[in-house]
Structure formats: structure tokens, C-alpha cells
């Protein structure tokens, strides 16, 4: 992941970043970042996602502000799907950020 901000999945320009840090604004709102919550290895909840890219029992790919979040596991199911967040449960082995 690039830190310079040239990439389209980056977290915004240097000025916006400094401003957000100065004003202590919530970054997920300012930079449109996903919030990933993990309950052990059995439930991963992604808030502020863009869309579901792929879903099967082994892989769940979710596109978000930073790129694609790939979850790898066994017998994964989509526990909840709403416009704001998506909850995946099962036995999760890996959480990867793909760009």
C-alpha cells in the first residue's frame, strides 16, 4: 500500500490527513475507511464497505475504501448483509488487504 496518496485506494492527500488528525475527526468518515471488527476468529464484521465481490465457503472478498478485504476460512456464511455493514461468520483463518 502506498503512503504517498497517489494510489486510488489511499487514505487521502497529506493535507486532508493532517487536518483530520489535527481536528481528531473520525478517520473512517473522512477517508471513507472500512471498520473491521473481529470477534475472535468466528465473526468478522465490516462496516462502511462498498460491495461484495466474491462469496463462497472458503473466501469472502469485500471491496472497501482501502481496496479489497479478503477473508479466508472454513464454512463461511454471511450472517447479515445491510447497506452499511456485512457480517461474516464461520472459522476465519486470514484477513488480507489486497490492492
Amino acid at each position, binding site marked *: 500500500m502506498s503512503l504517498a496518496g497517489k494510489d486510488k485506494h489511499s487514505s487521502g492527500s497529506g493535507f486532508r490527513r493532517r487536518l483530520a488528525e489535527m481536528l481528531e475527526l473520525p478517520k473512517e468518515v473522512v477517508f471513507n475507511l472500512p471498520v473491521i471488527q473481529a470477534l475472535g476468529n468466528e465473526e468478522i464484521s465490516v462496516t462502511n464497505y462498498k*460491495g*461484495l465481490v*466474491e*462469496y*463462497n465457503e472458503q473466501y469472502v472478498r469485500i471491496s472497501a475504501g482501502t481496496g479489497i478485504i479478503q477473508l479466508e476460512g472454513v464454512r463461511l456464511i*454471511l450472517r*447479515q448483509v*445491510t447497506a452499511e455493514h*456485512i457480517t461474516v461468520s464461520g472459522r476465519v483463518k486470514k484477513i488480507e488487504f489486497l490492492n
Partner: protein
Amino acid sequence: MFLKLLNFIRGYVVVAVSGFSAERFINLAARRSIYLWDAVRDEGRLRISCSIKGFKLLRYCSKKSGCKLRIVHKAGLPFILFRYKKRRFLMLGFAAFIGLAIYLTSFIWLVTVDGNERLETKALLDKLAEMGVSSGNHKSGLVLRDIERALMAAFPEIVWVNLDIKGTRARLSVVEGIVPPRPVETGQPCDIVAAKDGIITSMATELGRPMFQPGDVVKAGDVLVSGEVVVGSDEYGFTSYFVRASSVVLARRYYEYNFEVPLAYVIKSFTGNVKRNYGIILFDRQLFLENSKSPYLNYDIVSSENRLHFGEDYPLPAVWFENNYREFIPITVRRSLEEAKIMSRTIVNARILRELPVDTEITDMEFYYVVDKDVLYVSAVVTAVENIGVQVGLGRPGPAMNNEQ
């Protein structure tokens, strides 16, 4: 748990999504804020749950994403209700059942009284029934506090009362106190009047003018001690003043008891044969489940009752009872004359205890017997000495003391 219950009440549909991109279908649905849950990949197809409302919107998503939708399972209350919608009479019966249950539980079916020791339960129940608290009465419109107050007024023995209607049971709890003696009307002049006939044996007069002497025969209603005390007389008449007469007037009285003691009597020898008979009392009607006739010629009935309850607070107007017919063989036994005479004394003593005032002194008892074939005729004369005087107001107005002027 809670979410599952909510989903059940609102109803949901499990659909199978098949086609090129089920993910695209999910994204479209999520964008349209259709709530989806429990998505499972199942041999290439996707099985997913959504609400009934959401399902109607899913049609559009399936068309746009080129996926096929198939309903796998409908679950939840709306579908169950829909299934019974056509069975109109079942629903009607169900509604009638609930309505009837509500209607019937708005009555009082059982009234219980507790806490009374000297007051009779029946007297309390009668008074309650008078005010609308009885089996079969509607419980609405009863002002319990007013009824309590009325009970307190009707029974001065009650010092605390609580009436509570819970379900179909009305429970009256009372606490009895000791009735304070009626306040003595001091100052009000009165006579001592004979309550019964008798021969005076002694008079101990504290206040008042005695009208009789020991040895005199008096009749009920005679004034024994007058409250009018004469203090002087002249040509114009008497001068007197009135007092509250107070005297203990003992008189001898005779009581005669005539009765018979059978010399032959029957005892029951139970054979051990018992026939059970069950039945139910609905309201006040007895319904036997079997023939209520006894198979035996001579029998005793021992019955037990059990009120039917619908939970603790909902007694029903039905009592389950069991009658036991116990067969016996009557055996005639004879008692001797001596035994019969002893028995006659016991009977007389029991009647004296029951019928005569407590402070009565028994001075003599005489027995006269006539023996018949199977019966001993007894005539007992009891001589008793008792207080026959009662205070009776003069019935005429007047100052407590004197009218000298």
C-alpha cells in the same frame, strides 16, 4: 434469540439464488436496503433469508443481475396464520374459546372465608351474597372497600376485614376482636324485673325498693325491686325519687325433662364392602357418572369433594366428588335397665349444661321411670336456683335523681 423471535413474528422467506453472479445480486439488494441474513453457499447456489417485505423487492434485483430466484422455505407467523385463514370455523372456534374464557373468568366462582372463629361462615357468606359477592355473580362493579365497610358495620365482632378478588375467587379474611361490653347506662333509673317464674330464695338488694320477700312466688314480668324510692308522703301524695335498682334475686325453679331411652338399639357392623361412585357438581346440580343407587341394603355414605381449579386463582364452578357406599349389617343390642338409667342421667346433665344459664345452681334432681317392653320412659325434675332478675328501664322520663319540688 430476540432477533430470531422478531424474525419469526414478522415472517421470512428462504430463497435459493442461482445464476452467474450471486454477489452482484447481494450488492444490489444491500444498496436497496433489503435486509439479508444467513447466506450460505450450497453447491454453487446461494441460499439466503430475507423478510417478506424485502422479498417483494428482490424480484427487481434478480432481473437486473440475471439471477434466478426460488423460494425454498417460508417461515414465521404470517405464513402460519395464512394457512389457517381459510379454515374459518377453526378460527371462529378459537376466537369463541378465548372470548368464552375471558367472559367466564369475569365471574366469581368461589367465595372463601377465613379467620373467623366465633362468627359463622354462613352468616358472613349470606351477608356477602346480599352485597353481590357470591358464586355466579359478575365481579365488575363491586366496590370492595364499601363491602368491607358494610361488613364491619354488620358484624361488630370484626376488627379487621379484607375482601380480595383474585381470578374467579373472592377471599374474605376477617380478624375477630372481643366485643366490648355494652356501656352501662349509669344514671338511667330502672327496675329489676323477673325474667322467669320462680320462688324467691334470697334477695340481696343494693339499691331500690324490694317488692317481694324470700318465699314469695313470682311470675315472669313481675317487678321484683322497684327503682322508685318513696321518701315521704302527705295528703297530696307520695314524694319519691328514682334510682337505678340493683339487686341479685335468686329463685328456685323446676325444670322437667321427659324423654325415652330405648332398651334395644342398633349398631353397625361394617362388612368391608365399599362401592365407589364418582360424580361432578356443576353449579348446584349433582351429576353422577354412574348409577347413583347403592348396591347394598344398609349403607353409610362417606363422600369427599374436590373443587376443580384452573390454576391457583381460577377455581371453577365445578366440584369433583367421590361417594363411598360402605355396607354394614345392623345388629340389635339390648342394654340393661341399669345402663339405661345411667344413660338417662347423662342425658339430663348434658341438657342442663346446654340449656340452663352458667351460674345456675342445681339443688336437686329426681328421676321417675316407667319401663315398657323396649323403652324406658324417663321423667326428670331438676330443681335449680338461679338469678331471675333483669334490669329494665322505667320507661318513663325523669331525672336520674329526685323530683322533690
